[in-house]
């Protein structure tokens, strides 16, 4: 039998003051006057006739009063019975990884786990401090009433930050019990209360391997891989969403193997989200069966052309070829018209460099005099700039160009004059909203339109003017570890330990004992 525990034992110091005081008060009076008598019997009879008792120290009365005072002091010390030892805190580690989304009988393992946690927490005594930690792609923690209610447990996703046995071992201590609810994919901690809610099942996971983005052209190549965790079976991969037409492919999945499926898609001009979904029979985890891609809209540029009489033919042809390639159109350049890309050949134009997406060939500013640069000799071009990377300009020949007619910008192509001075033949001016490409010569005065790199150069200039528009894969690659549901253990449960029981408050009993002692003392003559 364990003795009660005193929560405030310092209150017992009162006894040191109270007990001597009670002893002193219990002493009979000590009169100073003394009288010798031979009639003591008569004194006693006289007192008895008056029903009086001589005042004297009554040890039993003092003992009862002292015990009552001791009981009150004991009550002040807040005694509590020993109670039951055990953990005073419960940490529930709720597996919120992607595998917990596996469904069986129309209900996910995570939903069963949440229900199990709620049910178990109902039986946990209210004095036990409860904390629920959901582990997964996003970890969340609830305490107290919120933990017991577990109203918004979230959805399972991602992987566990660490193996559950290690997390359970880290969370447990002498006063903390750990309850793990998982599907058992990462094993179950030994010696810890644990419930497994999963079951072995077949699953197929879809992963996007490669995206061949041909923007600004509508063609889009997507290669996906189907990871099969289960027996051999058929699967269908369907791409839908922001496409000109949905595409579907059927593939034979080998047992516990991999199947690669290339998809040739044509995107819609408006762009949007493309969803690639794999459908296989007896698939337990639909969460990893699809991938989403963010597809930017096609540029569909309106290309305007300005050119003098002789040069208009070149840029007109170039504009038309560019429009055909990217799905755009050639519009007339006029005041008040709207265009997304401008091609200018020769003459003078009051266009601010870098203010609009354009390519200007041999254009001078109106206030700048004409200074001819005869037969510039090509020196080199910027191989590192994305605009020119991989293009060959070695065959470029220029009959004459405009000297010092280019605006300030990044030199892309350089040449030397007769004096041996190196000057730029082409510069790129990057403005805050657009980039403009300026050449010091006209197309008609060079062999640039004849080069194989010319259409690519125009397309890159157009893309440069519209910024980076690439397809992005929105869905992260699925965890193959989470997707493998074949090795899940069957459901099991290891019950919660017996929690600590706080001792009973003994103060009221002490006060009751004190009252009884006082009553006994009052009845004792």
């Amino acid at each position, binding site marked *: 039998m364990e003795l009660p525990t005193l929560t405030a034992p310092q209150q017992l110091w009162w006894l040191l003051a109270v007990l001597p005081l009670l002893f002193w008060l219990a002493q009979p*009076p*000590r009169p100073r*006057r003394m009288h*010798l008598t*031979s*009639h*003591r019997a008569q004194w006693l009879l*006289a007192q008895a006739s008056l029903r009086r008792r*001589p*005042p004297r120290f009554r040890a039993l009365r003092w003992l009862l009063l002292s015990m009552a005072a001791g009981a009150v002091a004991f009550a002040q010390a807040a005694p509590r019975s020993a109670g039951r030892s055990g953990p005073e805190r419960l940490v529930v580690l709720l597996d919120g990884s992607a595998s917990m989304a596996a469904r069986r009988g129309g209900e996910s393992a995570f939903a069963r786990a949440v229900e199990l946690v709620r049910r178990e927490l109902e039986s946990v005594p209210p004095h036990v401090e409860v904390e629920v930690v959901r582990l997964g792609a996003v970890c969340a923690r609830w305490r107290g009433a919120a933990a017991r209610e577990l109203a918004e447990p979230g959805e399972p996703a991602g992987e566990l930050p660490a193996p559950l046995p290690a997390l359970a071992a880290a969370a447990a201590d002498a006063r903390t019990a750990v309850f793990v609810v998982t599907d058992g994919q990462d094993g179950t901690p030994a010696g810890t209360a644990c419930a497994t809610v999963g079951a072995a099942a077949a699953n197929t996971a879809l992963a996007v391997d490669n995206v061949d983005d041909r923007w600004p052209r509508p063609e889009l190549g997507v290669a996906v891989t189907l990871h099969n965790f289960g027996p051999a079976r058929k699967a269908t991969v369907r791409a839908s969403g922001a496409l000109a037409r949905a595409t579907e492919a059927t593939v034979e999945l080998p047992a516990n193997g991999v199947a690669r499926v290339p998809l040739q898609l044509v995107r819609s001009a408006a762009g949007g989200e493309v969803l690639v979904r794999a459908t296989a029979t007896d698939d337990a985890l639909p969460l990893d069966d699809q991938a989403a891609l963010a597809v930017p809209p096609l540029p569909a540029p309106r290309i305007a052309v300005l050119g003098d009489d002789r040069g208009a033919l070149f840029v007109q042809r170039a504009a038309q070829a560019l429009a055909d390639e990217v799905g755009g159109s050639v519009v007339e350049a006029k005041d008040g018209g709207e265009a997304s890309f401008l091609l200018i050949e020769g003459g003078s134009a009051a266009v601010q460099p870098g203010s609009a997406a354009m390519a200007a060939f041999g254009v001078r500013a109106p206030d700048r005099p004409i200074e001819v640069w005869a037969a510039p000799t090509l020196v080199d071009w910027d191989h590192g700039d994305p605009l020119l990377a991989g293009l060959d300009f070695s065959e470029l020949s220029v009959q004459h160009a405009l000297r010092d007619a280019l605006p300030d910008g990044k030199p892309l192509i350089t040449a030397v004059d007769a004096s041996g001075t190196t000057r730029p033949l082409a510069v790129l001016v990057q403005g805050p909203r657009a980039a403009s490409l300026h050449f010091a010569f006209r197309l008609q005065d060079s062999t640039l339109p004849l080069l194989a790199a010319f259409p690519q150069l125009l397309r890159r200039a157009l893309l440069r003017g519209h910024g980076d528009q690439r397809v992005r894969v929105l869905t992260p690659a699925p965890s193959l570890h989470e997707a493998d549901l074949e090795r899940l253990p069957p459901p099991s449960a290891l019950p919660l330990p017996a929690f600590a029981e706080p001792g009973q408050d003994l103060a009221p009993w002490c006060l009751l004992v004190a009252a009884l002692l006082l009553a006994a003392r009052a009845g004792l003559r």
Partner: protein
Amino acid sequence: VRRRALPAVPEPFPDAFRAMLEQLLRHGNRIVGGRTEVARARRRALAASGTFAGHRSYVPGDDVRRLDWHAFARTGGLFVKLLEEDERRATTVLLDTSPSMLAGGPPRLLASLRLAAILGGLALVHLDGVHVHAGGEGRGLQGHGAVGELLTRLREHVVRDEDPRTVVQSLLRAGAPGKVHWISDFAEPRRFEVALQLLRRSGRRVKGWLPVVDEDLAAPSAGWTRVVDPETGDELVLAVDRALADALAHQLQILVRQQQQVFAKAGFELRRLRLPVESFELRDWLEVGWSYRR
């Protein structure tokens, strides 16, 4: 039982008392009780035919008819003839010296000692002798000249607790003569009842003398008072108020009746008297009124 140190008794026989006692003893027939006793003794002497046993010196107050004129003619001195019958004209003074006699202020023992001195002195003067028994010891004294020794004997008393029955048995074994004058507080009458019956069966006559002190009449002053029994050392702490004082007075009256009943049952007399202990005037002491019998 824890016993307190008993209080000392004041000097019982100061010179003033001794002088007053001498006057009182010479007062002769003017003592009321003494005259009666002398007349009765004379009648007994006339009727008696005792055997000559010796002489003793004449003292004032002796019956002149018992003077031995022949001895006067031979010697020129006055002698009284002692007959066998006269030998029994003695008395016994039994003084209770138990601690309870120390009660009272002044203590009852002081008055008792002086009372014993007067009674013994009267016996020495008017009778043939006295047997004084005090403090567990007894001794016979004769003649007027033994008054000093009487006082010395009384003064050397030892305060000791004595059972009345034991005292009486001792008295009877010692052959104490004549009437027994028992001076005591008779605080517990039942203890004296057996002793008185014993004396009665042995043919003795007894007279009880009870010197009254203040505590026999009323309670001391009011308030918290510690009352101590000097015999046992037991204490009582009392809140003395009017009600308790009245109740005590009632109990003291009952005690007086019990004392009287005990003596009456044995056929003896008990005399309660208030002695002028603090006075040494002969007048005050003569007002007491003395009487004694053999």
